[in-house]
């Protein structure tokens, strides 16, 4: 009495084996992908943490700069003006020789007042919050142009000043541009710098000098503190950038900052 369909039973057996093997493989693959995912997440959090840390460092740096700048301007600038006034009150009470020394002293004090103002403005650009990025950059550029060391020209779209940038962004872009100018003056032997601003969905800033340029590979190997600062500040405000430079062909960077509409 044999009522079994042996083929059916063999089919069942093969099928069960298939289910077991397939599930083993699937479990293995799934487990692997979970491990990969976790690794990637870990990396992402690490990156995010680094970025946050950098933000915090830059933020506190800015706060400190602002404080020092203000103290310098208010305290030392004030005291210097007071000293100058006191010296003025001595007028006509001194001999001619002494008067001569006094005039020189007053000149020195005047120079100091200007220096202190420059330093404090450099530490915390005073117009940024009130007049915005573009006006502040213009003021900065005219200051540099006045030194006669280099010629900087700015091109901008007419409605560019309508863009209302967050203060942090404006400050970051201002720092980046001043750092770029600083780099050009220090290292590039350039005679001309062009900065242009344009906007559509994003704010585009093109910076270009006619200096000696450098090999981009150098930047990969070691980037100086200046360049690192530029990178981290741009990263902080989620701006992207592209550098184009070659030895003897000048330096150009194009910065894109997405505008929220």
């Amino acid at each position, binding site marked *: *009495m044999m009522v079994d369909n042996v083929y059916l039973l063999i089919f*069942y*057996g093969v099928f069960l084996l298939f289910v*077991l093997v397939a*599930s083993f493989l699937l479990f293995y693959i*799934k487990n692997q992908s979970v491990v990969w995912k976790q690794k990637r997440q870990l990396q992402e959090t690490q990156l995010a943490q680094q970025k946050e840390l950098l933000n915090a460092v830059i933020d506190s740096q800015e706060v400190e700069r602002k404080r020092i700048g203000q103290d310098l301007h208010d305290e030392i600038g004030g005291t210097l003006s007071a000293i100058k006034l006191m010296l003025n009150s001595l007028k006509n009470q001194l001999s001619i020789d002494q008067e001569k020394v006094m005039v020189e002293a007053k000149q020195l004090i005047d120079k100091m007042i200007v220096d202190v103002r420059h330093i404090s403005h450099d530490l915390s650009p005073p117009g940024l919050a009130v007049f915005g990025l573009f006006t502040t950059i213009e003021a900065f550029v005219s200051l540099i142009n006045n030194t006669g060391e280099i010629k900087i020209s700015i091109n901008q779209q007419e409605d560019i000043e309508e863009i209302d940038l967050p203060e942090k962004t404006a400050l970051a872009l201002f720092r980046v541009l001043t750092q770029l100018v600083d780099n050009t003056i220090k290292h590039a032997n350039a005679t001309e710098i062009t900065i242009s601003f344009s906007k559509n969905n994003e704010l585009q800033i093109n910076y270009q000098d006619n200096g000696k340029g450098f090999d981009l590979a150098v930047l990969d190997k070691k980037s100086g503190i200046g360049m690192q600062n530029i990178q981290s500040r741009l990263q902080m405000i989620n701006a992207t950038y592209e550098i184009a430079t070659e030895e003897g062909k000048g330096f150009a960077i194009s910065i894109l900052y997405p505008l929220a509409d």
Partner: protein
Amino acid sequence: MYLTYIVPLSILIPVSIGLYKYKSADSAAKSILYYLLLSGLINLIALVLVIKFRMQNLPLLHLYTIVEAVVILNYFRIIFVDKKVKRTIATLIVVFPLICILNFIFIQDIFTFNTHTRPLEAILLTFFSLFYLYKSNFIENWLQEPISWFNVGIVIYFPLAFLIFASSNYLILVSKNKELNDIVWKINATLSLLMYFAFARGFMLIKKSNDGR
């Protein structure tokens, strides 16, 4: 002794724990409990039939297969979240008993082992418990979840019992090797014992606090 009393009676362990936790149990745990109760009941009837009336109890196995498949499939229907899977299982709950009935009416005599349908049942249950494991991921306190233990029980018993189910007619009716037969059914009993223990552990993990309300 082992086959007739110890293993069938061991079902009382998970059953009593399950009944004790009945109020706090969710519907998945309850359906496992129903399975144990029905299986115990049918086993009891089978025992009585054999011992008291010296009757063939194989027809009961055909019924038992249907009951077991329906109750455990229903358990899977409850624990899966995916609507499609739920629907598929619901269809199987209807189709599988039909296949069983067709099988014992037209294909396999009701006084033989139902080797066509019982292995199929074992494959289905194995498949769904593995599939659930795959879908639900191993969570951190995996061994603290009652459902994990229910599935472990099913995965312990059914894939291995499959071999025994599939070869039962051959073993009993063809080979007639008493010793081999004995060993095979002891293995089967031991596996079901392990399944009962896993279920018992699952019931133990049901937390009393959340009252099921």
